[in-house]
């Protein structure tokens, strides 16, 4: 009797344990919203360690915010920008980011440039005190823009006097790379992360279908209107658009994506550029940098760059004249939005 009882209890306990263990991992879902890097972020993860994963993602975003901020006096970037031409130790991580930014700058013929920061500030986009700088001022500022003014070595960096950098163009992309790494470390089977305009989707949805990602219609920035819908699994998606930040003066609209060649808002005939790549670590940074660069380059040069195969990515371009241009890698996963009024073109 005692033995039977003991066995019975053991069985009961094991049932109890497996009952907990077998709980559907999709029921374990955690989603948090934070504000970091001056933008709202949402981290959603599934799986047993989802809670741990999203809070680690939050910590990482805050760490990078403090490290890379251009306005925080304690950040490495602030110190580098105010080192008066002296080289300082920035650490291998920041050095690696600067070098990555340099590589994207070279690859895109300077269309992406982290040293454009003082020009962006001159237009008031860093402080919200918008103004149109005069040509002389821009010309002077542009003499300090360019890769040649930045030097890096191992864990140190130096800027020529007058040059300042802002990693804002890749910081959120880099953060999304870190999030994907954190999610993987925590065995998150599926999840998503929104870091401002930087999106990461991991796995598929709990119902087994891919994530539906709406590309904001640049013509209706304040509405729930999409220029296209993409169904994706395991991907980074980043959009740069002239509608995201702009001001108007004397009836003319000035947006925040500055062409490093002219010092003026890029006038490329595009209203938004969406870059899509698979969720390999590093691609978040790439998508972030390329979305800005390809917006500056315009439709023709952007498509040429895509065709060159330098990097592995796909594109959705929305043009001022009402077309949505899609590269053929996306043709099977793109849903056209009829009521948007756009005409769709697949290019290869």
């Amino acid at each position, binding site marked *: 009797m005692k033995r039977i009882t003991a066995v019975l*209890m053991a069985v*009961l*306990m094991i049932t*109890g*344990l497996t*009952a*907990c263990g077998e*709980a559907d991992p999709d029921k374990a879902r955690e989603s948090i919203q934070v504000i970091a890097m001056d933008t709202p972020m949402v981290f959603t993860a599934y799986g*047993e*360690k989802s*809670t*741990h994963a999203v809070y680690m993602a939050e910590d990482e975003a805050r760490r990078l915010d403090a490290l890379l901020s251009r306005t925080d006096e304690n950040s490495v970037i602030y110190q580098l920008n105010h080192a008066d031409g002296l080289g300082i130790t920035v650490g291998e991580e920041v050095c690696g980011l600067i070098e990555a930014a340099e590589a994207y700058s070279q690859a895109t013929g300077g269309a992406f440039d982290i040293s454009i920061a003082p020009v962006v500030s001159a237009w008031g986009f860093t402080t919200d005190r918008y103004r149109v700088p005069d040509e002389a001022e821009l010309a002077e500022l542009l003499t300090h823009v360019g890769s040649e003014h930045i030097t890096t070595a191992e864990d140190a960096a130096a800027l020529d006097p007058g040059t300042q950098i802002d990693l804002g163009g890749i910081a959120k992309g880099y953060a999304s790379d870190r999030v994907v790494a954190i999610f993987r470390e925590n065995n998150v089977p599926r999840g998503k992360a929104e870091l401002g305009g930087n999106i990461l989707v991991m796995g598929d949805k709990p119902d087994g279908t891919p994530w539906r990602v709406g590309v904001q219609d640049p013509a209706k920035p304040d509405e729930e209107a999409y220029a296209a819908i993409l169904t994706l699994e395991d991907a980074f998606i980043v959009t740069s658009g002239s509608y995201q930040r702009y001001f108007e003066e004397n009836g003319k609209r000035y947006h925040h994506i500055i062409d490093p060649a002219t010092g003026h808002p890029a006038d490329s005939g595009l209203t938004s550029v969406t870059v899509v790549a698979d969720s390999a670590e590093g691609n978040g940074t790439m998508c972030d940098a390329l979305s800005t660069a390809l917006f500056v380059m315009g439709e023709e040069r952007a498509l040429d760059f895509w065709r060159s195969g330098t990097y592995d990515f796909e594109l959705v371009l929305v043009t001022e004249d009402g077309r949505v241009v899609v590269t053929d890698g996306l043709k099977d996963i793109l849903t056209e939005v009829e009521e948007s009024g756009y005409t769709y073109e697949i290019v290869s």
Partner: protein
Amino acid sequence: MKLTTKQLTLCGILTTLALALSVAENQIPLSLAIPIPGIKLGLANIVTVFALYVLGPGQAMLILLARCLLGAVFAGNMNALLFSLLGGVTAMIVMILLSRSRRLSVYGVSIGGAAAHNCGQIAAAVLTLGNTAPLYYLPVLLGVALFTGALTGTVAACLFRALAHTDLMKG
């Protein structure tokens, strides 16, 4: 309630022991293995079970109240008081009722107490947070209570066996 010097001493020692066990189990990061806030082994329950049988329900309750109060004071966290009180008192009531049934061994009483303890804590969480989200944890916590209850039951049984021939048990 009138206490003899022996009973009073025993109450004091057991309260101290319960507090020490509470502190000790906080060093065991059980929440790393099972990521649920507030998950514990409930080692202090051993003292409650022991006191319940040796000193009776009244004094066992006194020890419990003293343990919760002092624990909260030491931790400097009065918010935790509601949690430990609600959990502890619920467990106590269930264990008193279960121990009345002579058929149950210390194992059954401990498991019942551990389960009740978790129910009480979740109730406290629902009360303080004002929403029902913590209920989500209850099924898992109850499953875990089977093990922690059996564990404390085993320790209590060993304790009774070891002390079976001492004065203590002849109160």
